[in-house]
């Protein structure tokens, strides 16, 4: 039951993009088509789940016993960066199309505030290993849902009669604002 609560919390209530406002760069950058959005969501979810595992191990078996609190950010971000490099090589090999479509935004998963943010929150919340895994999975799926929602809307937006200066990125931000207002309705669910 506890795990389910964490999962739903991460996906809807504290959705990383629309409620906690982390990971906005890829959210705005990659949400032009649903395929790239799904690719980005999947890549980020993979990185999040693996990071959840590694950062938990590192925190409770390296940082805590040796008392190196100041190393927390660099160590976490180093793990995340290596995972992203791994994903980049994997995508470069298996699906070059998606690799080129993601372009600059693939390396930017490293600095995706949601990934580092969620690992810090998981550590501060003193989650157990399983809990932080579920939390990572929930965060990733929440991120993907938000990305797909936005991509779906933006694909329609291209043909909507939007005032010229607002077209493209301007309206995307306003839509994101409305989306996050809607998601704040989930507050208090958990």
């Amino acid at each position: 039951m506890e795990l389910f609560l964490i999962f739903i919390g991460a996906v809807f209530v504290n959705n990383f993009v629309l409620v906690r406002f982390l990971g906005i760069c890829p959210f705005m950058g990659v949400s032009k088509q649903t395929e790239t959005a799904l690719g980005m969501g999947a890549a980020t979810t993979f990185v999040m789940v693996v990071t959840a595992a590694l950062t938990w191990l590192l925190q409770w078996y390296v940082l805590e016993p040796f008392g190196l609190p100041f190393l927390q950010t660099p160590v976490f971000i180093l793990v995340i960066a290596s995972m992203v490099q791994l994903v980049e090589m994997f995508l470069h090999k298996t699906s070059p199309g998606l690799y080129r479509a993601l372009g600059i935004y693939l390396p930017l998963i490293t600095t995706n505030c949601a990934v580092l943010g969620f690992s810090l929150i998981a550590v501060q919340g003193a989650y157990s290993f399983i809990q932080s895994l579920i939390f990572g999975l929930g965060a990733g799926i929440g991120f993907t849902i938000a990305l797909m929602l936005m991509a779906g809307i933006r694909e329609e937006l291209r043909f909507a009669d939007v005032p010229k200066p607002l077209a493209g990125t301007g309206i995307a931000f306003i839509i994101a604002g409305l989306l996050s207002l809607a998601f704040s309705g989930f507050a208090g669910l958990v």
Partner: protein
Amino acid sequence: MNESVRMIVVLAVIAMVSGGVLSFVYDWTGAIIAENQLRQMESSVFEVLPGAVRVEPLGTAPSTLVQDDPETSREVEQTTTQIFVGFDAQDKALGYAFVGEGPGYGGAVRILVGVDGESGEILNLAVLNHAETPGLGSKIEEASFRNQFKGKTLDDPIAIGRDIDGISGATVSSRAVAEAVRRGFADAAAAYERSR
């Protein structure tokens, strides 16, 4: 082969350099930061304990939730509360101040509560740091809200809406302050009694 060796060496060296630099800077600034924080805490204690001239940290005590506020009776993890004793010019113990922490909207809200030694009433309350939304949650810093806590003792119930009216539009922040006050009040009072 040298390509992969080069990869390992470069990354390892850069990581090592970063580890070294960080730890060196941490050690060097650690002392100064602690110094700063102590002086900062001291100035807050003087603020909440009027008339206090000297401050002596009384160590920390485990903090437990004294009264169960129905809305926020979520499982609260243990945090340690820092306690300070304030002495006036004649070096007589005036009272004590303890640090309370509550879950705010944007993150943890840390406050310092000054309590009179004899009457056990709250003298004053200062917000140490918070990440509440400016313009809304940040109104907990205003005296009008904080002064409502004055005069309350350990046994008086402190709940937003009943004893203290919270800030409109910032109930989460107001409740965080209330919980921060309750948390650690009993242990601080007990620790102060023991030290007398």
